[in-house]
């Protein structure tokens, strides 16, 4: 177990270094001169040359990368926003809680509804309930969630006046963004739970528990579900990271002041350091979440460690 964990951590560490290189290299591929982007087209050549020098833009990439890492470690700094001149890290951490509300809310909702409907579909295999869940999940994966968001705004905000159109502040503001974000992942979780449940319901130990006269309810919920949940757990971990990154569209629609909206605005306003910071931070949390999930998985299922 210990060697598995160490191995897995080392692996993630290598990936982290790779990701940081990739993110730092993003600057290299941007067409045009970042110094011109900051100072504007009208700046004098001297000013541009001076800023290029200050930013170290003329150094070779690995020198620039070294500086990027050094600044990150010694000062905990990801550079400054071109637009607001504030630390990129503060810009992001100011907004992170908002994105986390959405993400946790959506993960909780999607896991609850997804697992419950998946179990239902598996137990009622081929019956109307199963078909209803199948239709529901197919729709959930096909209907664009941003469209559903607009239809919800039309219904709940414009027609009924129950929920605010946009912004943050009360629990009411959270309802539609969380629903929007959870919609596609309810469908994935439901489908995965269904197939995992069908597999574990066909196992010998389930037949044994039935044979010894255990109540069907207990067989399903205790014996079968416990084993079916393992793969579902991995997907929850993966989706947590994907949702962190995927809150972009939802946050823009609902004017939610999270990291996603920050990133989209920064792209549109060419505020490159903020984009870089967001990409790095979200990807790192994605990698760390997956690491935790993998270790939890190995702890729960000994077969993983030895394969």
């Amino acid at each position, binding site marked *: 177990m210990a060697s598995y964990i160490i191995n897995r951590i080392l692996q993630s560490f290598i990936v982290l270094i*790779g990701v940081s290189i990739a993110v730092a290299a993003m600057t290299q591929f941007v067409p045009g001169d970042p110094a011109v982007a900051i100072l504007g087209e009208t700046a004098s050549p001297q000013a541009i040359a001076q800023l290029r020098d200050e930013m170290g833009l003329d150094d070779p990439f690995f020198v620039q990368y070294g500086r990027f890492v050094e600044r990150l470690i010694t000062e905990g700094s990801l550079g400054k926003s071109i637009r607001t001149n504030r630390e990129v890290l503060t810009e992001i951490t100011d907004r992170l809680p908002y994105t986390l509300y959405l993400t946790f809310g959506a993960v909780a909702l999607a896991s609850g509804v997804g697992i419950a409907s998946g179990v239902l579909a598996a137990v009622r295999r081929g019956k109307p309930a199963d078909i209803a869940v199948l239709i529901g999940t*197919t729709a959930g994966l096909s*209907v664009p969630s941003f*469209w559903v968001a607009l239809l919800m705004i*039309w219904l709940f905000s414009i027609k009924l006046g129950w929920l605010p159109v946009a912004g943050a502040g009360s629990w009411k503001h959270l309802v539609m963004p969380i629903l929007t974000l959870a919609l596609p992942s309810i469908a994935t979780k439901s489908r995965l739970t*269904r197939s995992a449940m069908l597999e574990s319901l066909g196992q010998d130990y389930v037949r044994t528990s039935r044979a010894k006269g255990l109540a069907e309810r207990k067989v399903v919920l205790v014996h079968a579900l416990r084993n079916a949940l393992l793969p579902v757990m991995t997907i929850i971990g993966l989706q947590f990271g994907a949702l962190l*990154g995927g809150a972009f569209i939802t946050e823009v629609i609902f004017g939610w002041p999270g990291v996603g909206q920050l990133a989209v605005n920064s792209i549109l306003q060419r505020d490159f350091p903020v984009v870089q910071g967001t990409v790095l931070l979200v*990807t790192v949390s994605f990698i760390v979440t997956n690491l935790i999930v993998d270790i939890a998985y190995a702890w729960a299922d000994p077969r993983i460690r030895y394969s």
Partner: protein
Amino acid sequence: MSAPSISLTTTSEKHAALAQETRTPRAMYWKRFRQSPICIIGSALLLLLVILAIFGPLLAPNDPILVKTADRFIAPGSQYIFGTDEFGRDIFSRILYGARIAVQVGLVSVVVAFVGGIALGLISGYYGGWVDTVLSRLLEIWLSFPDILFVIAVVAILGPSLNTVILALGFLSIPAYARIVRGSVMSAREETYVEAARSVGVSNGRIMSRHILPNVVAPLIILSSMRFGSALLTGAGLSFIGLGAQPPEPEWGAILAGGRIYMYQAPWITVFPGLAIAIFVLGVNMLGDGLRDVLDPRLTK
């Protein structure tokens, strides 16, 4: 051929021929495909989308971009079947033109991923050794970016445009293709028939294309149909928030975005393009599900 000679082929021979025919994988898949309602519905919808993409501009009653201020916000009716937007443009015509963009997004991104993924997967799996180690690590880093974030990063570098989004969606899927190809190359490399081909002097390239690639066709078809659907969705989503197609391009997500502020007075601007995305993504997803059942019976539950 004369009649007697036909009668000479015995019934048992005929049965054998028939059995042979239905037993070839292609015939078997085709039979299963025809019998699967979701395959039929899914491929019909995809076919409709392709027809609209090719003939949409011919079928469209109006110019999708031309501004007609006199015709602003006309509700769906006999004059404009899906109504008009804030510039008096015909929503129906815009959606028809948008079909071409939708197919472009799905098709080009899948082709990019297909070509890139097969190349990387073949190289990685066939040569093995340090080439494989380096490429595998690279793919791992690639995959460690959450999907949308990867696309966002590419858009951030190259600037918002539909072409950037298409390219990014293609690059996003390369690792998924590469992994499938690599895995099956690795196992095929050890097969006797590959060894036999090599021993008679068949070139590496020919071994890969004739003896190894056919093994991965089924999973790649399934993956492609799934990615086509998700490319449509993500592409429309990014255009919706302004990172993809730019106005006045009649991309479905962009039309939706344009109608957003007029939802109170003209909900039809947002209803119809959303419906178009939903229906065709549904079709592609159904086809994907169906193909998986047809081509990979082990996964059928």
